[in-house]
């Protein structure tokens, strides 16, 4: 009986989706030559796909409900328990370290370049993780700070000839200041309003960069941004890339170190507490505005540094690199990896940036997959790949 009703439900779902996707999937109108293309095969595909997917969907939903009832405890996953033990963790870290050190020598320049962009996203993801994962402030305009960093390095270099090593802290600082300036008025807003205002702010920055020709050179952007130099040595392009790779690895390690320390510090605990209950937090004497502002500014600083490295890596920037979808991708890495968990965010960033690079044929489906992943993750595994395990204390008599 159950099988029968399930099949019936799937049939209904399949029929519904065939109806739903009919005009957009099947009919393609060519308005220039006034012809219509009927693509009936798509409809068959949708029908069959919807039949099985709806079955899977319902199965997973039921399973999730059952799972939710059975275990309520925050048990760390297998991977986390294994890595939590010193005897596995240290060799694993050593192997990882050696692998990273020899990576640019083992693989081609092309691979190194891909890895550099992936690592930039790791940095951005970790920075956004402070804002979204720890403090629980949804920031949809994160890319604005990324842009501030990139443009401040590019412009400072263009006008004053500043080098990468001066630009890196300055870019981070400037982005942090922007975070403070923006954060001060808007952080009083509630969660979802904040998301929209930050989104608006991100768009404002992009539009200003695009239209203010005298300042930012408009849509044509700024070219010939130098890569970092090593004590004034003349390096070849390949060596410069490898050098940048190592700088980035060092920065990522630094970021991990800082965030790890922050998490257990007074501020970090205040962030996590604020995320859970603002009123209780204020009652405990935590300054809400100041604490949020710190998270916002720190996150922005990291985005700014990421921006400087991005500018140095591509040697050319224009406003088109800083659209809202960039913010969404960074948010995706945080959400997919697991909000608040460092290893999760790193895994998420590497996965989201490296996979589409290696599955080039799959490229056009990249964004649609991102969308699907966001929805599915939220429905079935809101905690992300590596769920953040919070310290819990049980009361024992």
């Amino acid at each position: 009986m159950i099988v029968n009703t399930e099949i019936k439900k799937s049939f209904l779902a399949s029929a519904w989706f065939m109806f739903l996707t009919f005009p957009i999937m099947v009919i393609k109108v060519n308005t220039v030559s006034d012809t219509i293309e009927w693509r009936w095969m798509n409809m068959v595909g949708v029908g069959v796909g919807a039949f099985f997917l709806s079955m899977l969907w319902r199965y997973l939903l039921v399973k999730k409900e059952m799972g939710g009832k059975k275990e309520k405890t925050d048990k760390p996953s297998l991977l986390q328990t294994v890595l939590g033990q010193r005897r596995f963790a240290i060799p694993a870290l050593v192997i990882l370290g050696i692998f990273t050190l020899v990576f640019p020598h083992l693989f081609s320049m092309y691979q190194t370049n891909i890895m550099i962009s992936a690592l930039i996203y790791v940095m951005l993801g970790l920075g956004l993780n402070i804002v979204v994962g720890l403090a629980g402030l949804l920031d949809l305009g994160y890319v604005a700070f990324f842009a501030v960093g990139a443009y401040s390095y590019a412009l400072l270099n263009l006008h004053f000839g500043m080098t990468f090593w001066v630009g890196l802290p300055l870019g981070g600082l400037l982005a942090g200041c922007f975070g403070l300036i923006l954060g001060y008025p808007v952080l009083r807003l509630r969660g979802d309003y904040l998301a929209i205002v930050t989104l608006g702010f991100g768009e404002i920055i992009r539009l200003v960069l695009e239209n203010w020709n005298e300042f930012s050179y408009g849509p044509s952007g700024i070219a010939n941004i130098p890569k970092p130099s090593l004590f004034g040595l003349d390096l070849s392009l390949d060596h410069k890339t490898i050098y940048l790779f190592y700088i980035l690895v060092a920065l990522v390690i630094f970021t991990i170190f800082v965030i790890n320390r922050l998490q257990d510090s007074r501020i970090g605990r205040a962030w996590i507490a604020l995320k859970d209950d603002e009123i209780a937090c204020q009652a405990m004497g935590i300054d809400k505005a100041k604490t949020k502002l710190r998270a916002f500014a720190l996150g922005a600083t990291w985005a700014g540094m990421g921006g400087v490295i991005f500018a140095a890596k591509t040697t050319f920037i224009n406003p088109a690199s800083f659209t809202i979808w960039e913010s969404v991708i960074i948010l995706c890495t945080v959400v997919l990896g697991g909000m608040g968990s460092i290893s999760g965010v790193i895994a998420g960033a590497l996965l989201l940036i490296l996979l589409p690079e290696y599955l080039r044929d799959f490229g056009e489906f990249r964004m649609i997959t991102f969308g699907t992943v966001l929805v599915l993750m939220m429905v079935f595994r809101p905690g992300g790949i590596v769920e953040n395990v919070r310290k819990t204390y049980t009361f024992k008599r």
Partner: protein
Amino acid sequence: MDFDYFTQLFFGGLTRGSIYALIALGYTMVYGIIQLINFAHGEIYMIGAFTGLIVSSVLTMMGMPTLGVIFMAAMAAVIYSSAYGYTMEKIAYKPLRNAPRLSALISAIGMSLFLQNYVLLAQTSDFLPFPSLIPDFEFWEPYAHVITSPELVILITTFVVMVLLTVLIKFTKIGKAMRATSQDQVMAALLGINVDRIISITFVVGSATAAIGGILIASHIGQINFYMGFIAGIKAFVAAVLGGIGSIPGAVLGSFILGWTESFFTGYISSDYEDVFAFIILVVILIFRPSGLLGKSETQKV
């Protein structure tokens, strides 16, 4: 400053505002009932416009008279947008009814990405020309320099939709149930209201008004693109927040204010920063009046 230019901008702003209002209503209704910013609402509007285009071109090629084409295209757009809105709610929002608001918002962003790229892949990334479905009326010729007949049609349609919506919410049983659900879901359920159904109906109604907006604006501007829903959706959201999200008259008021300011700003100052201006208004309003112009301020309970 000559007066004709001013009235042109005035009515231009009014038309723009009414389109925003048609979209903003969906935002406000959904927010009022489940406190979710339906990020994908702009995409519903885009799908409405695409469906309208596809149906109208197919019917025109089959040789249907213009009036029939308009009617059928509008019907198809409304039906399909509503169906998309309904399905979207069932897939992306219903399983998250009790989850934190952040999760639902992220799911909504995912849905928006999905729908945009679905249309991009299934149709095209180019701009498609949209036939102007609304003809120039002859009797309106003397006034056409102030307000063109398509603009007039947009204004009248918006007005009719608003009246219908007000009637639906104020005087029908469904409307009463909607208001009850937005006040207190548990209590509404206890009193025998099918909350799930009411939420679905809200999505359907909101999507239908967005589809009407989509068709009207597409035939007014003359081209559509898979990306059109995003910026329109954001602006409509700005309008909804401006007026106080959750309040229906507020959404309409906010939309008109936004439409006028944009129209006058671009008309008298500069068109480069048109979108920047919309966002600046949003930020300023939210800072000084976080609950919007007509919104109720919410007291937080412990």
